[in-house]
C-alpha cells in the first residue's frame, strides 16, 4: 500500500493535474462563498466540462472543488451571518458574533485552519481506514437512520438560544413543511398546489430566505444609524488560540468523518451535531453563541471532514456518502469508470492519485484561505447600504441558478419575510433548517423500518446501533435540562 501511496504522488507532478487541483480549489472557494450555490450544485455544474478531461484530472478538479466549497461556506457565515453552505449554518452562531466584536479575521483564520486540519486528518483516515470502515456504511439500515435523525434533532438544544419552547416550535414547523411534496413511501402527493412543489420545498431557497434575506431586512432597519465596524481588527488567531481549539477540531473531525461515511446522512447533520457536542463538552457552554473560537472550529472541522468520510463508501462500495459524492459518482461514470469494490483492484493508481490529490488540494485551500482572510475582513468596511443590496442580488441570482426557476426566488423572498418576523419575535431560525435537513430522513426511515418489521416498533429497540443512538439522544437532552436547571438555581 505504501508504494501505491507514494506512486500516487507521481501524477501530481503533471501540470494538468496541478492545474486541476488549483482550478478546482478556486472554483470551490467561490462556489462555497456564494450563498445559495452549494458544493453539490457546483460539482453538478462543472461535471459536463470534466467530460473532456482525463479521468484523474477530472476527479482531482471535482474533489478539490468539493473540499474548498465546504470551507468557502464559512466565509459569508462569519462575515455576513449568511451561511454559504447548509453545513456552515452552525458556523454563524459564533462566527458572526466574533465579527460583531471586530474580529472577523480571527473567526476566518480559525475556520480555515480547522478546515485544513480536518481535511488532512480525515484524508489520512480515509487512506488507512476506507476498506475496513466500508462495512460501517452498510450497518446503517432504516432503523439506524431514524435513530440518527432523532439524535440530530437534539442539537436543537444548542441552537434554541434563549427559549427551548421557541426552538421546539421552529423544529416542529420545519418538520411540518417537510411533508410537502411527493411522499416517498406511498407515492401520493401532499400539499402540492403547483407543479414546482412536486419535489417538496427545496432547501437552498429556504436557507437563503431564512438567513440571507431576513439578515438583509434586519440590516436595512439599522442602516440609518450606520453602525459599527470601523474598528475591524485584521489579526488572526494566536498560536495559543489555535491550540486551545485543538480538542474542538479533533472532535469535529471525528464526528464529521463518521457521519460522512454513513450514506445520505449529510454534512449539515455533521456540523450541527459537532457544534452541539462541542457546546456540551465545553467547560464554558454559556459563552457559546457569544463568539467563542471553538464554536467555529468544531462545525468547520466537521463539514470538511465529511468530504473524506463521504468518499469511503463511494470508493469502496460505489455508494455515495453525501449528495455531493452522488454527483461525483456521475463524474466516474462519465469517464467510463465504476467506483466500487473493484476500483481498488482495477485502478489503484487512480485511487491513490486521488488520495494524494486530496492532500495537495487541502494545502492549496489553506493558502487561498489565509490569503483571502484579510480581503474578506475588508468587505465589512463597505458601508452596509452598499453591501446589503449587492448581497441580496447575488443570493437571489444564486437561488435562480440552482433550480433555473423563478419559483425558488419567490420562495426565498417568502421565507425571508418569515425569517424576519421570526427574528423580530426572537424565534431562532436555525432549528427550522435543522428540521428541514433531517425531516425527510426521519420520516422515510421510520416508515421503511415499520414496513420491514410489519408494523412493530420493537425494530427500533433490537439493534445495538439504534439503542446506542437513542441512549445518547436521551443523555443529551437530560444533560442539557440538568445544566439549565443547575444554572437557574445557582445564582438564586
Amino acid at each position, binding site marked *: 500500500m505504501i508504494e501505491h501511496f507514494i506512486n500516487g504522488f507521481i501524477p501530481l507532478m503533471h501540470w494538468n493535474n496541478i492545474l486541476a487541483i488549483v482550478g478546482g480549489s478556486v472554483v470551490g472557494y467561490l462556489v462555497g462563498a456564494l450563498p445559495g450555490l452549494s458544493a453539490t450544485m457546483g460539482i453538478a455544474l462543472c461535471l459536463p466540462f470534466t467530460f473532456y478531461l482525463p479521468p484523474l484530472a477530472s476527479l482531482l478538479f471535482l474533489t478539490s472543488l468539493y473540499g474548498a466549497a465546504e470551507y468557502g461556506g464559512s466565509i459569508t457565515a462569519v462575515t455576513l451571518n449568511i451561511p454559504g453552505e447548509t453545513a456552515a449554518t452552525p458556523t454563524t452562531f459564533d462566527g458572526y458574533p466574533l465579527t460583531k466584536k471586530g474580529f472577523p479575521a480571527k473567526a476566518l483564520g480559525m475556520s480555515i485552519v480547522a478546515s485544513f486540519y480536518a481535511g488532512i486528518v480525515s484524508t489520512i483516515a480515509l487512506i488507512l481506514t476506507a476498506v475496513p470502515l466500508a462495512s460501517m456504511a452498510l450497518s446503517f439500515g*432504516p432503523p439506524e437512520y431514524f435513530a440518527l435523525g432523532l439524535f440530530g434533532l437534539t442539537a436543537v438544544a444548542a441552537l434554541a438560544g434563549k427559549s427551548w419552547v421557541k426552538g421546539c416550535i421552529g423544529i416542529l414547523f420545519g418538520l411540518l413543511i417537510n411533508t410537502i411534496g411527493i411522499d416517498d413511501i406511498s407515492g401520493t402527493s401532499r400539499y402540492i398546489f403547483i407543479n414546482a412543489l412536486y419535489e417538496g420545498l427545496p432547501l437552498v431557497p429556504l436557507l437563503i430566505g431564512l438567513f440571507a434575506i431576513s439578515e438583509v431586512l434586519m440590516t436595512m432597519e439599522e442602516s440609518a444609524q450606520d453602525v459599527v465596524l470601523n474598528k475591524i481588527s485584521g489579526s488572526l488567531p494566536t498560536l495559543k488560540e489555535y491550540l486551545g481549539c485543538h480538542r474542538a477540531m479533533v472532535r469535529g473531525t471525528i464526528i464529521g468523518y463518521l457521519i460522512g461515511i454513513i450514506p445520505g446522512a449529510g454534512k449539515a447533520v455533521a456540523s450541527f451535531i459537532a457544534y452541539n457536542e462541542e457546546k456540551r463538552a465545553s467547560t464554558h457552554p454559556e459563552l457559546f453563541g457569544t463568539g467563542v473560537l471553538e464554536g467555529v472550529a468544531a462545525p468547520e472541522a466537521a463539514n470538511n471532514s465529511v468530504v473524506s468520510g463521504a468518499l469511503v463508501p463511494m470508493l469502496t462500495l460505489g*455508494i455515495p456518502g453525501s449528495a455531493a459524492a452522488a454527483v461525483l459518482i456521475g463524474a466516474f461514470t462519465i469517464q467510463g469508470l465504476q467506483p466500487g469494490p473493484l476500483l481498488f483492484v482495477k485502478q489503484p493508481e487512480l485511487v491513490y492519485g486521488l488520495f494524494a490529490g486530496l492532500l495537495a488540494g487541502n494545502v492549496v485551500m489553506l493558502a487561498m484561505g489565509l490569503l483571502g482572510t484579510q480581503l474578506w475582513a475588508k468587505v465589512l468596511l463597505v458601508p452596509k447600504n452598499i453591501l446589503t443590496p449587492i448581497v441580496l442580488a447575488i443570493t437571489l441570482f444564486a437561488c435562480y441558478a440552482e433550480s433555473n426557476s423563478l419559483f425558488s426566488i419567490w420562495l426565498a423572498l417568502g421565507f425571508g419575510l418569515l425569517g424576519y418576523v421570526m427574528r423580530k419575535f426572537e424565534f431562532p431560525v436555525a432549528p427550522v433548517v435543522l428540521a428541514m435537513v433531517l425531516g425527510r430522513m426521519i420520516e422515510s426511515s421510520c416508515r421503511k423500518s415499520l414496513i420491514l418489521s410489519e408494523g412493530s416498533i420493537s425494530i427500533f429497540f433490537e439493534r445495538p446501533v439504534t439503542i446506542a443512538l437513542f441512549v445518547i439522544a436521551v443523555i443529551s437532552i437530560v444533560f442539557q435540562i440538568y445544566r439549565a436547571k443547575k444554572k437557574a438555581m445557582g445564582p438564586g
Partner: protein
Amino acid sequence: MNFTRNLEGVFSRVTLLMVLVAVYSLGLVPAEAADGTRFPIKPITILNSSPAGSPADVMARQIAQHAKKHLSQPMVIVNKPGGSGGVMFASLMADPTDGYTISTITSALITALHGDLKKDFSIDQFEFLAHVQKEPFCIAVKSDGPFKTLKEMIEYAKKNPRLKIGGQATYSALHLLALALAEESGMPISYVPYRGGSEIIASLLGGHVPVVVSSPTTMNQHVEAGKVRILVASGEKRLPQWKDVPTLKELGYDIVITQYRGFAAKKGLPPDVRAILVDAIRKAMDEPGFKDYLAKNSQFAEFMGPDAFTAAVRADYNYMGKLMQKVVKK
C-alpha cells in the same frame, strides 16, 4: 462624438469576430450541410430529467458528442431533474416544436405518466424519435444468503412472514415488477421503496432487505466482486454478461419488463427536421467511440427509428397501465 467612435470600434470588432467565427466554422462543417438554410443552424438542446452523470445523461452526452460531426451543430445537454420527470416535461412543452429542443425519454418516464403526472401530461403530446439502449431489470440477493434460485425464494416466501423486497420508488417499473411476480407466484411480499440504485445496493449488502429488484448496471460490479447473486432477469432474452441467469419468461412467468432509453420531442416536429435528427442519432450510434462507451459500461444498444420506437413505447405504456390496474388497485 467620442461615444460614437467607441461604438464604431465595438462594431468593427464584432464584425471581425463574426467573420472569424464564420471562417472557423466553415473549416469544420461538412460540405453537404453548409448551405446555411438547412436544419440545424444553431445548437440543439437535449433536456434530461435525471441529474448529470446518471445513465440517461451519460447516454445523451455520448450521443451528443458523436452526433456533432453529422449535424454540424453541437447538441447541449440541459439537466432538468425533479418531479418524477414533470419538471423536464413542463420545460419541453414550453419550447417551440422546431427540433431545437428535444429530450431523452426512458421507460421510467413513460411509467410515470400513469402516476400523478397524468394530470398535466399525456403520452399523446410526445413524438418518439429513436430508441438507443435497452436493458432488463433483475432480482438480486446476497451471494451468502439462503436463496440460490428464484424457486427457493418463492417457496421460502410462501411459508414465512411477508418477504421484503427493496426497489426504487413507489409505482415504478421496479415496484410493478415485484408486485406482478408476487401475484403470479402467489407469494406475499412487502415492497420497500428506496430513493435510488445506491440506496438499494447498500440495503442489500447491509442485510437490511433480503431481496432487491434493480437494474443490472447497479449490480454488475457487485456480482463480479462475488457479493451479489442474480436470481432472474426480466427481459425477453438472457443477458450476455450473465449467460446462466434465467429470464422470468423461461421460468414460466408471463412478465417481460425492460428499461429503455431514447429520444423524444414535443409532437408536431416537421418531417424533414425529424429525419435529420434521427439520422444523426443513428450515425452517432455507429461511431466507434460510442461502441467503446457501451462496452465499458456493459450497456447494449439497439437502434429503432420513430415508427418502431413509437410502437414499442405505446405497447410498454399500455402494458404498464394494465399491470398497474391489476396489481395496485387492490
